[in-house]
């Protein structure tokens, strides 16, 4: 089983008032980007911290590269790097100093050129001599990833690396995370951004209340739990909804738009032609493929915004 990067079986973490992790199983193959996706409090960070050796599980087993996380976490530190949730770098150290310092804590004698290369990897060369306190949110996370990479780890834990960043910074970090995979590293990514998991992950485990409620690649999950294709009648409103109802076509209204869900891909063209022929006030008409957001809504029963489930 040592060909797996991570293997989790029946993992539980219980506190007197809550089951933070409630018997989860998953495995991650080397070179994968695996995402734990879920709202705040789902148990993602607890799971990651157990894998990093920072928490002890109540029950079950967790192995990283075949090593038990509770008994052999020192070996895991040799092969794993971590970016903690809400990472903030040391205020008064520059990226060059921080990376050099961090490498010394891994007993790695790192040359100036290697520090510069590490910083270049995360795109911080122009800010290499700027104190941490003056870096932007995205730059701070990049520095955190640079520090996580100083031990040249095979596995990188990224705990909500883009939380709180603006869309531009998030997309820049996505590129960096993809480059880690290209470099042959395994990435365990926790996130509450559905689009992030959909864009980056080879394999996704959707967590809620300590349990994994669905597991698979984004495509598999969308196929299995999505609505197929949605025809969007933008601005059609209640009048459009009534017109469709009168023709026996099932629809829903959302934010003034009328949505018609088509599960069977072969019926999309026929349904679109039929809907388009009905007279109603509308701004535009287009089709939209299901996303992980639809999957999440269907599985959890509510939408998620910034990690918080809507009532």
């Amino acid at each position, binding site marked *: 089983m040592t060909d797996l990067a991570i293997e989790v079986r029946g993992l539980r973490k219980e506190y007197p008032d809550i089951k933070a992790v409630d018997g989860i199983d998953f495995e991650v193959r080397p070179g994968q980007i695996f995402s734990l996706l879920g709202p705040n409090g789902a148990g993602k960070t607890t799971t990651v911290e157990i894998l990093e*050796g*920072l928490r002890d599980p109540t029950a079950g087993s967790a192995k990283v590269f075949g090593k038990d996380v509770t008994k052999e976490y020192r070996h895991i530190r040799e092969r794993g790097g*971590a970016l903690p*949730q*809400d990472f903030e770098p040391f*205020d*008064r150290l520059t990226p060059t100093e921080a990376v050099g310092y961090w490498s*010394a*804590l891994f*007993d790695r004698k790192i040359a100036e050129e290697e520090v510069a290369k590490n910083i270049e990897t995360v795109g911080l060369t122009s800010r290499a001599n700027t104190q941490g306190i003056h870096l932007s949110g995205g730059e701070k996370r990049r520095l955190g990833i640079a520090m996580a990479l100083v031990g040249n780890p095979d596995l990188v834990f990224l705990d909500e690396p883009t939380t709180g960043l603006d869309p531009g910074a998030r997309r820049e970090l996505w590129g960096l995370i993809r480059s880690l995979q290209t470099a042959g590293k395994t990435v365990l990514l926790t996130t509450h951004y559905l689009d992030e998991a959909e864009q980056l992950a080879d394999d996704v485990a959707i967590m809620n209340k300590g349990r994994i409620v669905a597991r698979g690649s984004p495509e598999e999950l969308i196929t299995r739990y999505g609505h197929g294709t949605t025809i969007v009648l933008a601005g059609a409103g209640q009048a459009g909804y009534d017109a469709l109802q009168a023709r026996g076509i099932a629809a829903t209204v959302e934010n003034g738009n009328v949505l018609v869900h088509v599960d069977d891909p072969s019926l999309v063209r026929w349904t679109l032609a039929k809907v388009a022929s009905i007279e109603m006030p509308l701004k535009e008409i287009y089709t939209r493929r299901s996303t992980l957001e639809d999957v999440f809504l269907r599985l959890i029963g509510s939408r998620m915004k910034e990690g918080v489930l809507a009532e």
Partner: protein
Amino acid sequence: MKRILADAKAFGKQYLRSRTGTFFALAFPVILILLFGAIFSGTGSASLAIYVQDLDNTPASHTFISALNSTQILVYNPIPADVNITGFIRDNSINTALLIPRGFGDNVSRAMLLHDQNASVTVTLYGDPTQSSFGIASSAVEGAITGYNFFVRQAAPVVHMTTGQVSERGAKYIDLFLPGIIGFTILTTPLFGMTGICAEYRTRKYFKFLATTKLSKAEWLAAKIVFYVLLMFVSVALILTAGVLVFHMDGTITPVAVLLIIAGTVEFTSLGMLLGIFIRDSETAAAIANAIGFPMMFLAGSFFPLDLFPSYLKTVAHFLPLTYLNEGLRSTMVLGNDSVALVDLAVTTGIAVVFFIIPARTLSWKSK
């Protein structure tokens, strides 16, 4: 060792780049010594109670007691003539007491009236030479004797003083502040610094981040100690320079003082981390550091000799780790009594070892 030095270097850079940290570590103690120097090197000074057993009880001995009172440092308190003076000292927790022997008046009269060159009398200053006030009393009594001799026989010595264990150096009152300020700095800078650092490392999750490296808790604490020891030496150098240059304070950095500075820094850096076990945020850190640090700096005699305290506060002081650092520094730097300072060094080192071991073993970087 490389990890410790790397952590100490990184920590030191951050610390010294913070203007607030640098101010409180280096500039604030200098300001304090200038402030106290200005207050106590002038006319204003605190008084010290001196107990006197006058076995002679003659006009001459009464005049001598008046001379003691006129120093404006010593305040006379009588000891009954029919008690044993050493027993009285012990029973009443008195630090300094002076014995005027029988025949005092006769010898003074012979010197004054008969110009007897052989007339001589010795008063004895009793007390605990480990207490800083003993040095003050000794200097003050010597001064009074000099003045009295001048009055009696134009400075030719008639009255002498013996102490047995008194310091070789005379100490001015202001001199006592030098080690006090050093002790204060060794208490506050590492203690307040470490409690704040523990809060910051916890809230910013640096402990968790560090837990993913090979650095151990003991190494992390050792790195902080290395930095604070270096910082304290710089701070002590600045304090000494300011005190000596501006107020001509008398203080010598002896080998025992160096060891006390190191042991004290280990002690209070470790205490800061020990308190850090209970600290969850910066507000708690400030509250805990203030609650521990402020009473200790006053009760341990940083600014006032313990002998000026009521006896119950003296008892409290002996339970405070800073007391031994202050008294040890005073003994070796001002009073020149290394044998006493070594006892304080041993106590300080013992406490430092305990304070180091507890957090190094119990502080958890892991989450529950």
